[in-house]
């Protein structure tokens, strides 16, 4: 199965028990709005941890109805994150979401050796884009978490992403390793890594997917472009997952698709015991909602 639009995620979630989402430092209008909407739509069962009074005030001001929702009062930001993480560590909930707290504090708690959510895997970010002119969703990693991943990191990022796609119902997702060019160029490390990843995939060192690279963006996305260049590839033109060489490239691509191509996007952090929703203030309400939906679909 492949997903054609973000709303297809609803099909994965519906009919199953609702996942519990813990919003840490929940006194945050930006995330509260999306969480409450997702609750009303039966997508998640939220637990709000944060400054209860501030939460009340926000709900009054914006007309959010939270009758029947579990709210745990913990006004100290760090403590509210710790309680959220401990709750997930104890398997009392399924998804962690960041509220009004810096990413650094949140990740510090997630990575706590005693009560955190470590699995031994690298944490990585994945974004699913819905673009009008592509025939299915396209997953992009990593545009937000790993700055300049080396080969070992890239393997971990691919593994994280592939097992995530399998959870969503994909079978043998097609992974394109992005380069500026489709030829291996000894001066461009990204193209060397791409070649190695492809070979490791062929030798079954990286499983459950088909990897090809380096592919330039047009070859990865457009079958026509690949044909023009005479590239023989199972992945070209039919990519499910695009692996970025580094955060600079990923961030540019992410933002240009959202701004210029009006792409819809949902994103989460992978590699911890549970999916983590880590949206930023500048994300749209829709993007936050879709990210929550994605986290519910990815958690099991």
């Amino acid at each position, binding site marked *: 199965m492949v997903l054609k639009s973000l709303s297809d995620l609803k099909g994965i979630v519906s009919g199953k028990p609702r996942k519990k989402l813990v919003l840490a430092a929940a006194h945050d209008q930006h995330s509260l709005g999306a969480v409450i909407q997702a609750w009303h739509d039966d997508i998640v069962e939220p637990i709000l941890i944060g400054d209860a009074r501030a939460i009340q005030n926000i709900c009054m001001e914006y007309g959010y109805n939270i009758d029947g929702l579990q709210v745990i009062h913990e006004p100290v930001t760090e403590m509210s994150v710790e309680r959220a993480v401990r709750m997930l560590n104890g398997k009392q909930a399924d998804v962690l979401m960041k509220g009004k707290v810096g990413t650094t504090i949140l990740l510090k708690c997630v990575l706590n050796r005693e009560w955190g959510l470590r699995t031994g895997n690298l944490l990585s970010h994945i974004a699913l884009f819905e*673009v*009008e*002119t*592509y025939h299915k969703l396209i997953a992009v990693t990593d545009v937000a978490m790993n*700055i*300049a991943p080396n080969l070992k990191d890239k393997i971990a990022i691919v593994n994280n992403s592939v097992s995530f796609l399998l959870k969503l119902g994909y079978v043998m997702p097609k992974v394109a390793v*992005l*380069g*500026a*060019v489709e030829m291996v*160029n000894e*001066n*461009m490390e*990204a193209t060397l890594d791409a070649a190695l990843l492809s070979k490791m995939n062929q030798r079954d060192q990286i499983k459950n997917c088909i990897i090809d690279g380096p592919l*330039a*963006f*047009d*070859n990865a*996305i*457009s079958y*026509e*472009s690949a044909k*023009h*260049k005479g590239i023989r590839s199972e992945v070209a033109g039919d990519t499910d997952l695009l692996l970025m*060489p*580094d*955060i*600079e*490239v*990923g*961030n*540019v*691509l992410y*933002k*240009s*698709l*959202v*701004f*210029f*191509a*009006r*792409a819809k996007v949902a994103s989460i952090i992978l590699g911890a015991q549970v999916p983590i929703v880590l949206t930023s*203030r*500048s994300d749209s309400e829709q993007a936050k909602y879709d990210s929550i939906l994605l986290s519910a679909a990815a958690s099991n």
Partner: protein
Amino acid sequence: MIRSLDQMVAKVLSGGRKYRIAVAWAHDDNTILAIRKAVEEGIAEALLTGRKKEILKNCQAWGIKPENFTIIESDDEVSASADAVKLAKTGDADIVMKGLAGTSHFLKAVMDKEKGLMLPGAVLSYVGALQLPAYNKLLFITDPAVIPFPGLEQKIAMAEYAIEMTSRFGIEKPKIALIGASEKPSRHFESSAHYEAMKKMAAAGQISTCIMDGPLDIFLACDRKSVEIKGVKTPVDGDADILLFPSLESSNPFYKGLMLFAGGELGGLIRGTEKPVVLMSRSESEKSKFYCIALACFMA
């Protein structure tokens, strides 16, 4: 101020001048079709280098009257590239364009110390004018095609080339966004240090008149609303004319992504040469190819 590629084309057409374009190894239909359009529009005279027999066969296949073209017999792509460059060098052509010759052969001829077209001491780079439905003017980008990892000196040259081009488009004080993954300098990326030096140099008048800021992400460079939401103070103010990218790895997927997903069209040109040099990828649209040729005429 010229705000679209079609306005630029109109300007070239109204000039009423015919530019002589030497095409290196004009053996593919792609090239022939692009150049035919320029000839039919009345802005170009074509001088094709390559095997006469094959070029004639190609013309016949597409129903093109070969008397529209001057054909110069060359045996292979290396000598065809050298012949095309020579025509420009001796003043028999105004513009050089790559046909089916390999990019490296073609650029070698362009960069040849004695017979080539490089301006003394110049950096070879590329500036593209990107036309996007979601942007209210042209967005000039550099360098999406030639320099993999530009150093400081190359970045300065890239900025100068872009400023020069925007001034031809009637922009007096272009806003240049130096692109990064965020607005914060990063110790992981050399470009951050380059950007600080460039801003100082621009302020000191060592770089031609412009408004320069960076690092900025794509949102902060191109979207005023994001600038407001994030509260970042930047003179570029979400209204960039020029995006200067830290690497080919980031610029290449940027423009290809926007061509495929955001309805973008690109006119682009090699810079650093005595005469305009047109280099375009085979997979670019028919329209973009024509824009590249028109841009060369415009800048000639």
